């Protein structure tokens, strides 16, 4: 199939090498363990594999055949046709990391444009070429802050309203690392505490404060005072931001964030059962050299022609070896390209329009749900496109009924927060029409009446 050799060519090649058979090439492998019999089904043709994979895919119920109110870190947005059409240019997707700039200018310029778009969207000075996803980008913020203070500040203050899986990943990266301690707020007031309640936790041992914007419950806070208090203590503020929301609400750079990270999936990347997604990471000029991950910079060739190269590579693992602060090697190349095309296509007007549609529809949904007996909108603060509904019975039960009616209900917050049993996190995007929302509200009403 994908091996082009004819029998005659193979013979000729073996002869040129000076061995008499293919097996002779593997003499260094211990004989006892050489050529195991693999118990795998026989290979199939392309026609058969497509049929088999189609069967697997049809055992799923995709969001495209349902009406979805599920978000919690992955969002159902419209992806314009241009994006996949360009992503399928195989000059992009069958290339590798642009180690040879002379023949990788396509990838390099696209990454440079990605960095520019992310810097401008977040209100920061510089962005890297991406991390694996929002969760690992958040963890890398912790790693960067710890090394920024050369290990002298050992506390990370983590808001309980940061995505629970991001908090888990941050802990996997740092909990047992040297003497770092991660303090999660919300011990007294629960997960809904306000950011001001994190302030007493910040001290001169604090390296980093991490909040989400809008937070995991969809709430929008102005983190200006938190940023001031963080800086008064000499610490850094990391903001986990939703990129769609940044089309409508203030950039984190405006209220003093030092690091802005987030999940780029809403920017033209399919839901795809959780990956591949895109972690973005932006920071201030003075911290650029502390940032891990690939970076593309502009330069010129001998003739003065503009071009792009990977730069500041001396920070990276293959050069600094064990002194590097991160081992990241690949980025999410193709996903950064998707986001770059998405942001270029939507531009200033499109992103604002999408963000506004999400906002309007979510608020309509919340207003309608607030009229349903037994259900309560928990969010008191402004919110973006997600909000918390307190339900009169278990979210699982409600969602099962929803599913029978072709609706994918919201996220069951009780899974991560025991205090939030019977609380549903509802996400609304431009993909939800007024009719969808009305049908969803009607099903909640029926659920409340049972």
């Amino acid at each position, binding site marked *: 199939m994908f091996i082009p050799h004819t029998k005659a060519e193979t013979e000729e090649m073996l002869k040129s090498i000076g061995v008499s058979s293919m097996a002779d090439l593997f003499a260094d492998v211990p004989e006892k363990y050489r050529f195991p019999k693999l118990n795998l089904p026989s290979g199939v043709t392309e026609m058969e594999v497509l049929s088999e994979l189609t069967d697997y895919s049809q055992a799923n119920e995709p969001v495209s055949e349902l009406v979805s109110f599920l978000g919690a870190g992955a969002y159902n947005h419209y992806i314009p046709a241009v994006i996949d059409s360009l992503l399928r240019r195989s000059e992009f997707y069958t290339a590798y990391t642009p180690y040879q700039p002379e023949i990788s200018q396509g990838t390099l310029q696209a990454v440079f444009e990605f960095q520019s778009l992310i810097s401008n969207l977040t209100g920061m000075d510089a962005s890297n070429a991406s991390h694996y996803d929002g969760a690992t980008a958040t963890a890398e913020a912790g790693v960067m802050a710890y090394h920024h203070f050369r290990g002298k500040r050992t506390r990370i203050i983590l808001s309980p309203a940061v995505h629970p899986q991001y908090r888990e990943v941050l802990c996997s990266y740092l909990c047992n690392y040297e003497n770092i301690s991660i303090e999660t707020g919300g011990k007294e007031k629960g997960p809904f505490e306000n950011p001001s309640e994190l302030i007493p936790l910040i001290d001169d041992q604090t390296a980093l404060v991490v909040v989400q914007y809008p937070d995991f419950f969809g709430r929008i806070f102005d983190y200006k005072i938190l940023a001031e208090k963080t800086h008064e203590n000499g610490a850094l503020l990391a903001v986990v931001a939703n990129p769609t929301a940044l089309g409508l609400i203030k950039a984190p750079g405006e209220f003093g964030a030092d690091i802005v990270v987030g999940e780029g999936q809403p920017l033209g990347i399919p839901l795809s059962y959780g990956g591949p997604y895109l972690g973005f990471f932006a920071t201030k000029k003075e911290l650029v050299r502390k940032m891990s991950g690939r970076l593309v910079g*502009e330069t010129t060739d001998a003739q003065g022609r503009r071009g792009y190269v990977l730069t500041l590579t001396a920070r990276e693992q293959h050069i600094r070896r064990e002194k590097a602060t991160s081992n990241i090697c690949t980025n999410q190349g193709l996903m950064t390209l998707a986001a770059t095309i998405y942001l270029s296509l939507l531009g200033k007007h499109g992103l604002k329009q999408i963000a506004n549609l999400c906002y309007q529809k979510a608020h309509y949904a919340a207003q309608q749900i607030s009229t349903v007996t037994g259900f309560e909108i928990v969010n008191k603060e402004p919110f973006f496109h997600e909000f918390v509904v307190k339900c009169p019975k278990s979210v699982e039960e409600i969602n099962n009924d929803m599913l029978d009616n072709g609706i994918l209900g919201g996220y069951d917050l009780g899974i991560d927060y025991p205090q939030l049993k019977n609380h549903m996190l509802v996400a609304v995007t431009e993909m939800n029409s007024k009719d969808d929302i009305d049908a969803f509200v009607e099903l909640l009403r029926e659920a409340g009446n049972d």
Partner: protein
Amino acid sequence: MTEPTIYELSSAGRIGVQFPESDVPAFKVPDEFIRTNLPLPELSEVDVVRHFTHLSTKNYSIDTGLYPLGSCTMKYNPKINEVTSRLPGFANIHPLQPIETVQGSLALMYSLQEQLKEISGFAAVSLQPAAGAQGEFVGVKIIHAYHQSRGDFKRTRILIPDSAHGTNPATSAMNGLEVIPIPSDSRGNVDLAKLHDLCDETVAGLMLTNPNTLGVFDENVLEVIETVHRAGGLVYGDGANLNALLGITRPGDLGFDVMHFNLHKTFSTPHGGGGPGSGPVGVAPHLVDFLPAPIVSIIEEATEEIPPLYGLTIPAKTIGRVKAFYGQFGVMVRAFTYIRMHGAEGLKKVAEYAVLNANYILSRIRDKYTLPYDRSYMHEFVVEGCWSDAPDVHALDVAKRLMDYDFHPPTNYFPLIVHEALMIEPTETESKQVLDKFADALLKIAEEAHSSPELLKEAPHHTPVGRLDEVKAAKELVLCCWLPESN
């Protein structure tokens, strides 16, 4: 020709895509939160399509030609993978849907875990790690957690041969372990005497790339592993070079305790200009409980009428979660497609021809390039890109000159233990004709290095840009089209 940036192409008021008007009553965003300045470009759909199409033509790619980057396994990426991974039932499912609605995905992931177990000889596999580097991080973390769980806190050192992959030392440091390098012997194997000296009760483990980055299979691999095990350490296998071992031998059988796979190398998923990768981790029986959570399991066995119910479970002593959700699912679909098409026989053929191709190129050029270790190689090999009688020419020049012959250069200056290294991995998908052309180019360049070295020094001559000023890039640090004010 220089392609303008999207910011240079922008024209105020231009719109690339329109969305429907809102169909709900208006709600006002509180003024204090409204963003007033959104510096994004304004382009039409045609602008965007032409811009990125132009950019694509400035890339070299596998679909353009041979891409012999050592240790990167740049094999042909079958087109069917791009079709299966985009099936609506895969592309449009939300990671937090109830498991009953995603049985297709879970069944596929379960099968992929089983396939990888069979191919590698490990007892269990987690698909969660996002890339090889993250797989390594997980592997070393598992080793660390294993010792800690046994109350063995003095194991703080990790042994790394100087022929290992470049990410290994940083990975160990991220886990708070001290890195102890081990030299290679005169045949490119781990220096056994040195290993014996270093193996004591402070050793957490050894990170072994086998075949290593020289492209040779360690002739003493069983003794190496046994030595570490006898000292109470565990052995981590860097699976980046697994392409050479498919159906040839199983790392689990050789005694490795844990290993990561690179689905984007071995199983043909596209490299995407630098990602996404996917780095599942396989472990021996004593480490199963430490895998990152969650993994896919059968939670209700099949009956005669009903298929099994697949679900997500958390291993008892898990090192935790290293990524949101379950891994790079779209990449898994591609790898699964590839493995299904090959079966056991097909996979073995992959390894055989990958090794054949590497040794064939070597047989064609070995008289003109210095070979630091004269023995048989696996799927890649390393030569020196320099000659004592052509003192001005370096490996970099050879690499750049290859572009003039329409080839992507090999990995250069790695591994660090070979002077002026050129690390060549052709993969199995290249025909004899392509390999001959490549070998011819290398031979011609060896000749040019002596007859007209300036041709190499000034190369490449026919690319969209010439050699770029990397010092200037690092000094001026222009990272953004809309530049923050310079220093």
